[in-house]
């Protein structure tokens, strides 16, 4: 097994200050390293224990989706070090690898979230617009989770299409969106799960959905934070789907049947390629489906799918299935948009 080496990292920011830094952020090039002050018998030292974090975990921590303890205990790919902050020179510290399990005395307790930081980090603001959904009838927990997941998937998909077409979104973020569309085989269920999961992760901070408050009663309310423009699209999309559901479902069935009869459902995008005899027909049928649903813009999906009509069609069909599931809760009268 390869032994971890000493590592030199740059001091980036203090996150919690209480008479001295208690929590700091360091960087190894672009990799976040989070370090926590720990007790030491030698009072001339300012000892810290540090862990590397993936960008995803670091972002989750900043967004309040996980606590500090999680960063030090849960991710499998982390590397742990110790160092003396009093030894910092030219804004750099040299960390020694820490092998084995971190003792409890070095770990933060649960529920220390980034909202407790005493220093401000320059971050893009999170979403501030609000949507209130009215909920009624009987629910169990998995059902509510399922509804929220479907709602989020549709929201994230619409956001991705909007961001791809926006001149204000950074090229790096756009590359991330195209990667999400182009790196899945779309051969089975897992591809779609990962596809929507990634889309949710790639939503801009200013658009990211947040569940602010649930008031469970009959009727009750669910307050969601997000971007107003996307909420407007959701408010248009779901009632429109319910209004024209028969035609939309028939179109979905037609496309599904064609792909099934031609054994294309289980074929990967790569195997299918671009210049098949069926390409044009699939493209037309998928476009018809998006036109009926009013979303997503098919041309954008086609470009994002690297002009592979089978991949574009499968993505549009996955969008339809999620929209159908989410809309069912509205049709049942258990969810409605507030005014």
């Amino acid at each position, binding site marked *: 097994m390869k032994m971890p080496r000493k590592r030199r990292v740059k*001091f980036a920011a*203090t996150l*919690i*200050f*209480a*008479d*001295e*830094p*208690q*929590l*700091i952020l360091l960087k190894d090039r672009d990799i976040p390293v989070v370090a*926590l*002050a*720990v*007790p030491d018998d030698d*009072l*001339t*030292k*300012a000892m810290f*224990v540090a862990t590397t974090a993936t960008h995803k975990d670091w972002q989750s921590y900043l967004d309040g989706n996980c606590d500090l303890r999680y960063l030090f205990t849960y991710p499998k790919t982390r590397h742990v070090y110790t160092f003396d*902050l*009093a*030894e*910092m*020179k030219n*804004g750099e*510290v040299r960390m020694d690898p820490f092998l084995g399990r971190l003792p409890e*005395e*070095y*770990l*933060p*307790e649960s*529920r*220390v*979230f980034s*909202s*407790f*930081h*005493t*220093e*401000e980090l320059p971050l893009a603001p999170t979403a501030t617009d609000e949507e209130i959904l009215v909920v009624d009838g009987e629910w169990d927990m998995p059902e509510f989770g399922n509804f929220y997941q479907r709602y989020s998937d549709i929201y994230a998909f619409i956001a991705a299409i909007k961001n791809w077409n926006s001149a204000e979104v950074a090229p790096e973020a756009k590359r991330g969106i195209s990667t999400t569309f182009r790196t899945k085989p779309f051969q089975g269920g897992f591809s779609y799960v990962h596809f929507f999961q990634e889309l949710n992760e790639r939503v801009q901070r200013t658009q990211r959905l947040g569940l602010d408050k649930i008031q469970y009663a009959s009727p009750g309310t669910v307050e969601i934070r997000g971007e107003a423009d996307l909420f407007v699209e959701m408010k248009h999309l779901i009632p429109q789907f319910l209004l024209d559901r028969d035609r939309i479902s028939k179109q979905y069935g037609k496309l599904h049947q064609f792909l099934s009869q031609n054994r294309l459902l289980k074929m990967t995008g790569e195997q299918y390629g671009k210049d098949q005899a069926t390409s044009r027909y699939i493209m037309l049928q998928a476009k018809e489906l998006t036109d009926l649903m009013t979303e997503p813009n098919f041309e954008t999906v086609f470009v994002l799918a690297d002009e592979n009509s089978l991949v574009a069609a499968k993505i549009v069909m996955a969008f339809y299935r999620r929209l159908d599931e989410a809309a069912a809760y509205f049709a049942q009268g258990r969810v409605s948009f507030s005014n």
Partner: protein
Amino acid sequence: MLSLPPAKVALPIVATPNGMRYRVLWREENMPYLEDLPEQCPPANAKDQQFGPAYRILPKAEPAIEHFYSYSKLGLTKPGGVDECRYRSCSMFTNILQARAIATLPKKRATSTHLAKVVVQAGFGTSWLNSKTDHVDFWPYDTFDVAAAVTEVVPV
């Protein structure tokens, strides 16, 4: 040599018909700090002001002036990334949940047992309140009276 910042003392001058309401005038007076401070310290955005309640993390249930000493005054090493002025400040928090959470971090919890609820009056010291993060950097005057400032002590 002790730092001598311009301090301000309130003088009541007007009693209105609505009762005893005072218009406050200020006069400059030099007040020494509890410890020597470097040039430009406290920073320009800090001021002698009333605030509270704020919470100070304590190592025992009986608050003493030493519990408001900075790391510099306690003779502890200055860690990297900390400027000379902050090294001489005393941290407080205007949010009790935050104060509790920070008191349970590994290095703090090794020595912390209680939180002092503090109400600082003008004339106690100079402070910089970060309203976005609820953290206070406090540079007490040498007249800072712990008994007058601490209104309650609660376990962490």
